[in-house]
C-alpha cells in the first residue's frame, strides 16, 4: 500500500491540494495538517461524536474516516460555521444564550450535527432535536440546554426566512 496519496478537497470553502499519509484519519488531517483544532477527538471509536464534521453537507465521524476518503469532498468544520461576516451563526448564538456548553469539548460535534438537522428541517419538534444528538455525548450539560438551543435557533431561522444563509453558502430550505 502506498504510504502517501495526493488529495484535493475543500475545507470551509478553502481548496486544499496536498499529500497525506494513507493511515491518517480525517480528524488528524484536519487537526494536524490543516491546524483546524476545533474538531475534537474524544473516543476514536465513533461513539462520542465530538469529531463530527460535515462531509458534502452530511455529518460524518472524522475519527472513523480516513483523510484519503475525503478526496474530492467539501468539508465543513466548526471553524466554518460562523456567518460570512464572522458573527456567530444563529445556532452558535443560541448555544451561548441557553448555556448549551460548559467545557466546550463536545460542542463542535453538537453544532455540526444540529447544523445538518436545521438544514434539513427548520421546524423540528423537541423529540427530533433530542433524537438528532443521540450520537453526540456530552458529560457536562445534561443535554437539555442543547436541545433548547436547537429549538431556539430553528425558531429564529424560520423568522428570518430567506435572509438566513446556511454555512454552505445558500439559503436554507
Amino acid at each position, binding site marked *: 500500500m502506498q504510504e502517501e496519496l495526493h488529495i484535493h478537497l475543500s475545507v470551509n470553502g478553502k481548496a486544499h491540494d496536498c499529500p497525506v499519509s494513507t*493511515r*491518517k484519519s480525517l480528524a488528524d488531517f484536519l*487537526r494536524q495538517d490543516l*491546524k*483546524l*483544532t*476545533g*474538531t*475534537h*477527538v*474524544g*473516543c*476514536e*471509536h465513533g*461513539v*462520542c461524536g*465530538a469529531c463530527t464534521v460535515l462531509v458534502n453537507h452530511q455529518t460524518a465521524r472524522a475519527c472513523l474516516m480516513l483523510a484519503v476518503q475525503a478526496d474530492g469532498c467539501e468539508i465543513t*468544520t*466548526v*471553524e466554518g*460555521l*460562523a456567518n460570512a461576516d464572522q458573527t*456567530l451563526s444563529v445556532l*452558535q448564538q443560541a*448555544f*451561548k*444564550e441557553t*448555556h448549551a*456548553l*460548559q*467545557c*466546550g*469539548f*463536545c*460542542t*463542535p460535534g453538537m*453544532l455540526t450535527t444540529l447544523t445538518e438537522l436545521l438544514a434539513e428541517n427548520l421546524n423540528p419538534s423537541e423529540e427530533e432535536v*433530542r*433524537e438528532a*444528538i*443521540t450520537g*453526540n*455525548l*456530552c*458529560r*457536562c*450539560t*445534561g*443535554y*437539555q*440546554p*442543547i*436541545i433548547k438551543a436547537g429549538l431556539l435557533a430553528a425558531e429564529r431561522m424560520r423568522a428570518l426566512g430567506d435572509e438566513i444563509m446556511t454555512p454552505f453558502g445558500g439559503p436554507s430550505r
Partner: protein
Amino acid sequence: MSAAGQMDVHWATRSLPEHERPGKYIGSPVQRTEDEALLRGLGQYVDDLKLEGALHAAVLRSPHAHAKILAIDTSVARLMPGIVKIYLYDDLPESAKKRLPILVPNPAIQQVMTQEVLASKEVLCVGDPVAFVVASSRSLAEDACDAIAVEYAVLPAVADCLQALNPSSPTIHSDIASNMAAHVKMGFGDLDQAFALAAHRVRDTFWINRGSAHPMETRGYAARFDPATGDLCVWSSGQTPHLEKKNLIDVLAWHPERLRVIINDVGGGFGPKVMFYPEEALVAHAAHDLGQPVKWIEDRREHFYTATQERDQWWEMELALTAEGIILGLKLIMTHDNGAYLPWGIIMPYIGVTTTPGPYVIPCMGVDLRVVYTNKNATSPVRGAGRPQAVFAMERIMDKAAHSLGLDRSLIREINFVKPEQMPYNNGFIYRDGKPMVYDTGDYPRCQAMALELADYANFPVRQAQARLEGRFIGIGFANFVEGTGLGPFEGATVRVQQDGRVTVLTAACPQGQGHKTIFAQICADQLGVPMSMIDVITADTSTISMGIGTFASRITATAGNSVYLAGKSVRDKVLALGAFLLQVKPEELSLEDGVCFVQSNPVLRKTFAELARVSQGMPGFSFPPGVTNGLEDTQYFSPSQSTYCNGTAVAELELDTDTGQINIIRYCMSHDSGNLINPLLVDGQIQGSIAHGIGNATLEWMRYDDEAQPISTNFAEYLLPMSTDVPHAQLVHLCSPTYLNPLGVKGAGEGGTIPAAAAIISAIENALKETGLFLKEAPLTPPRLFEILHESGFFKRSSA
C-alpha cells in the same frame, strides 16, 4: 456591608428582580464570557497546542493485572522509523525512581502503595506503564510499542475487594503483607444502649459501582524546555496546576522558580484529573532530556485503564429505631475497593462514611471502614466523591425502615430531619477537612417539602393506580443529601488595574467548564464599578500566583470567588484613596462607574482607571505622598474556617418496562440549596449536568472486571454514558440559606445533582414494583441486571399466572 465584610443581603432566589440584586452582575444570569471562542472552535485544549518541533509519545502498558517483569527487549523497536527514544525504568533520573507521593496522607493508612513513573519490576494492574516511547508522530510511537518484547511472570491477581480480605488471598504486591490499606474504626454515642432500646432494627447490605468520570476530553500533557533560561513549561488537561507543579518539582528535582504549569481549556474533569499521573512526569522529563517539546494525549481505551475511578463499595448497615420511627443509632461496615494504589489517600471512602448521616439526626453511630487493595486501577473521587454511595445506602435503609414501620417514605424522613432551629448542627463526625462536621445553614424539611410539592408527590398514588389499570408500572422515589463543599485551605486571587484601565483577575482556580471566568468577572466588576467587558480573567497558570490548590470538591466559588471579592474591595479602596488625593476630595465623595472615578457632586472632576493606574505605578525617583501606595492591585487568599454544607432533595418519577428492564424518567424534580447564587444560569447548568451523571450511575455506568482483574468495559459500547434520550429536563427549585462562613454567602453547586440521583431513581424503580415486595440493594441497575432481578424474583411467573 457589615463591619466583618459579610454581605448584609440574602439575594438568593433566582427570580430576584434586577433592582433587588446586590450588584449589577452578582446574582444575575449573565451569559458566559468563555463561550465565544469555544463556539468558533478556537478553544485551546492541550492537544490543540501548536508547539514547533514537537515529538509525540505513547505508553507501553501492562496487559496483566499482576506480574513480575523479567526482561524488556527494545532492540527492534529502537530501530523503527521515527523513534527518538524509548524510556524504561532504568532510564529515569534518580528522583523519578521513587514511587509517586501520596497526595493526601492519613495516619490511618497502614501500608502506602503508590504508582511508579515506570514499573521497575512488578506491575500491579492492567495499564501500569512499562515503557515510554517518544517518536516523530503518535502512530509511529504506537507502532514501536507493539514491537517491544516484555517477558512477564504472571502472578495471581486480586480482583474482588471482599475476597482480598481473606487471609488466604494473594497480596496485590509482593512487598505487601496484607491487602488492607487502611482500617478505620470511628463513631460517637452509645451504640449498645441505642440498639438495646430499639423497638425496630433494620439491616441490609448494599453494593454500589460508580464507574469513572469520563470527561469528553481524555488526559493529556505537553512540555517544552527552554535551555536559555532553564525554564520547564508543562501544559496539562488537569484540575490542580499548583499540585502538579509541586509534584513535578519533587519527581524531576527541579528548581521551583523554573517550573511553570499552565492549564488552558479543559474538556471536563469531574475528579480524576486532580491526580498526578506518571505520564506528566514522563512528558516533562523527556522534553528536558531531548531538548524538544513532547506531547502525550491519552486515548479513550487508556482512559478506561488508567484514569482513576470510584468502582466497588459494599455497605452493611443496621439502623435502630423507636416504635415511632425515630432513629436511635446506626452501625456501618463499609468496604471499599481502592485498586492497586492510593493516590488520594483514603479521602473518597472517608467522605462516603461521614456523609452517611446526611440531613438526619443520628444520636450515635459506629463505623468500620475497610479500604482494600485490589489489582485494579486506582480509585479517587469522581463528581460526588463517595457521597452518592453514602446517600444510596442511607436512603435505601430509610426506605426499608419506612416499609417495616408502615410509614410513608416522606414521613420517616420528616421525623428524623435536623431542624432549621438546630443549626449550626454538629453531626458527630470529623470531616475530611479535619474539622467537626458542623452543618452551617439550611432548612432540610422545607427542601424536601418543596421538591415533593414540585413533583406532585401527594397525588402520585392516583397516577400510579391509573397506570396500573393500563398495565403500566410507574413509580416515584426521592432522596435527600447534605454535601460538604467549599473546602479549604485556600484559593487565592489577584485583582490588578492595568495601565490601559482594564482590570485583570489572576487565580490558580482551574476551570473545566464551570464558567469560573464569568463568575469571577461578575464578582470583580461589581466591586470596581466596571463593566464585565473591561475584565480579563487568567486562570490556572502557576506563574501568575504563587500558591494554589485546585478545582475539586465544589470549592472554587466559595474559596477563589471570595478571594476575588475581597481583593476587588481592597482595590476599590485603593482607587478611591488615590482618586481622593488627586481630586482633592474625601474618598466618600467619590463614585466609581464604567472605569471612571468621579466626584459625585461634580462629575466633571474625574480620573479614569488608566490614569490612576499609571500614577500608582510611580515616577522614577519620586516618593508617594502619605496614604498613597504603589499599584492598584491586591492579592487575597480566602481561607474558610471549615466546609460549608449544601443540601437538596431529588424526586424521580419513572415508568419501568418490565419486559426489557428499561426505565423512562417521566419527571425529575430537585430542590437545591447552595446558598447565594452568583449566576443562577450557571448553577442550573451545573445541577442539570450533574443529574445526568447521576442517571448514568443509577442505570448505565458499570466499570467491570473479570475474575483475573482484566477490565472488560473499556469502550463506550461496553460502558454506557447517558445519551440525550436518557436525560430528562429537570425541574429545579432553589432554596437559599446563605452561609456565614464566607463573605459572599455561597456554597458549592457542582455535585449536588449527582449525589442523590441513584438513590431517588432506584427507589422509584422499587416503588413501580411495589406489588412484588422487592427491595433493591444495588446500583447501577442496568436494564439487563434489572431484568435478571425480576426474573429471579419470580416476577414473570407471577404475571403470567
